[in-house]
């Protein structure tokens, strides 16, 4: 079980996403997951080994490290990526449910005209409307919430996004206020800022997608309202044609039965 499996899970939703959703997925997997796996994990790999405090007191290093890094950056990013990706599963579940219902009705013989076979149901791209629109919108909303929450947690836990090169620690069993040194603070700061920027871009993409979906619905409703108020010309022509057909058929019938028209 690794990031590839998550990609398989989420990638399936991609087919039914909007264009912005597809861009979001690309940013997530290329600029965040890949960077986390190939680069960031190496940088943080020796974080506790090379965390050194200016004392020989056993236990002081452990306690100070635990105080300044209650959760490692790497783990927090991994959790953030997992939580941010999972709302897409709501959409996946909804699509799976829709397909299951369509297949059930197809087997009963109800939707034979709409689909050729069961494979057709599986391949069909489902439009984002109706209840799926609500599910999709909720998933984007949750994504934004999770991104914002994790960014705030990061800021709160580490007092900003910058890692200092020395920390002062005086917790028991440290005998006094000792200096503790983090390994590779500048490199870690660079990667932290990179991941935060990618997070901000993803959040902006989600907000844009939300606005796009809302606008789409508004335009659709406005168009429908306009159509109802002013039926289009071809509909008018059709109704007139129908009237004429009725008149012709009536006069024809009367001619057959011998009644005067």
């Amino acid at each position, binding site marked *: *079980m*690794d*990031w590839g*499996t*998550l990609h398989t*899970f989420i990638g399936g939703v991609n087919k039914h996403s909007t264009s912005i959703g597809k861009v979001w997925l690309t940013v997530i997997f290329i600029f965040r997951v890949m960077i986390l796996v190939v680069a960031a994990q190496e940088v943080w790999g020796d974080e*506790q*080994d090379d965390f050194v405090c200016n004392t020989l*007191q*056993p*236990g002081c*290093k*452990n*306690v100070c*490290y*635990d105080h300044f*890094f*209650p*959760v*490692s950056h*790497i*783990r927090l990013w*991994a*959790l953030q990526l*997992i939580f941010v990706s*999972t709302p897409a*599963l709501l959409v996946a*579940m909804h699509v*799976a*449910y829709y397909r299951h219902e369509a297949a059930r009705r197809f087997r009963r013989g109800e939707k034979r005209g709409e689909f050729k076979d069961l494979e057709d149901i599986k391949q069909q791209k489902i439009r984002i409307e109706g209840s799926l629109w609500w599910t999709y919108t909720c998933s984007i909303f949750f994504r934004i919430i999770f991104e914002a929450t994790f960014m705030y947690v990061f800021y709160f836990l580490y007092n900003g996004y910058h890692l200092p090169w020395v920390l002062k620690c005086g917790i028991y*069993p440290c005998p006094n206020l000792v200096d503790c040194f983090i390994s590779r603070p500048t490199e870690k700061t660079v990667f932290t800022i990179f991941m935060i920027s990618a997070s901000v871009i993803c959040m902006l993409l989600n907000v844009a997608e939300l606005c796009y979906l809302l606008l789409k619905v508004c335009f659709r409703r406005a168009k429908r309202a306009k159509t109802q108020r002013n039926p289009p010309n071809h509909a008018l022509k059709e109704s007139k044609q129908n009237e004429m057909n009725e008149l012709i058929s009536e006069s024809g019938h009367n001619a057959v039965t011998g009644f005067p028209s």
Partner: protein
Amino acid sequence: MSWMFLRDLLSGVNKYSPGIGWIWLAVMFIFRLLVYMVAAEHVWKDEQKEFECNVRQPGCENVCFDYFFPISQVRLWALQLIMVSTPSLLVVLHVAYREGREKRHRKKLYVSPGTMDGGLWYTYLISLIVKTGFEIGFLVLFYKLYGGFSVPYFMQCDLKPCPNTVDCFVSKPTEKTIFILFLVITSCLCIVLNFTELSFLVLKCFIKCCLQKYSKKLKSSVCECHNLRYVKYGEMGAPPLLQKHRLDSAMSTAQEGETKTLMSPVRVEMGRMAVVENCGRLCLSVQSNRKLKKWTPES
């Protein structure tokens, strides 16, 4: 052999699981397996190397570490994941058994081997109960072994060969506590999902049984449309309502002992007759205190 093997096995279960089972699988894969592999495993990576006691006595650290962590939390977590996932394989095995049986007999024995009916329903129920049992068992074990779900940042140890009561410091206690709490929460979520699925299955079966019993009672008082071809009237004549309706094979007024053809025939004994519509055609419904007998042309 790695976690991918378990993932591939469990993916096969997906096909036969109802809706809540699918949610359970998603929680299992994403919030437990994935979190374990990409995050939790690394937190406990250097647990013994970084376990430090405030003493230079050789062997003291080893003894104290072994005393406080008889089995590492992360290994217990891995065992839990494996034990909790495997009852789902009972379902896969049962479906495979059904498919094998159909192949051997070379005919269709089931509606579909994966349909949740008959023996498979019981297998699924048992797998749910076993899964829930394992989840609760492991949570209780965790609690008993480590005295709760939090990891203290230091512990006091006075086992031989430690010369006196020494302070021993655990590495990354806060991070470990966070991940253990995460494990407990996801475990509880899975227990809730299992209970919900269990209740749903049992309720569904109960409602089905009740409906079947009710429809059987109803059938015994309604005529059967397609089985009989003739009707024999008893003492009563044809009900007046029937005479108003046009049938394909017209019904004449009944006389005693006369056989008439009807679209929806039933042998009428004593009792009141009522006209009901069934299958889009009219037939007689007899509310009789005698049992209805099927009259066939041979009798």
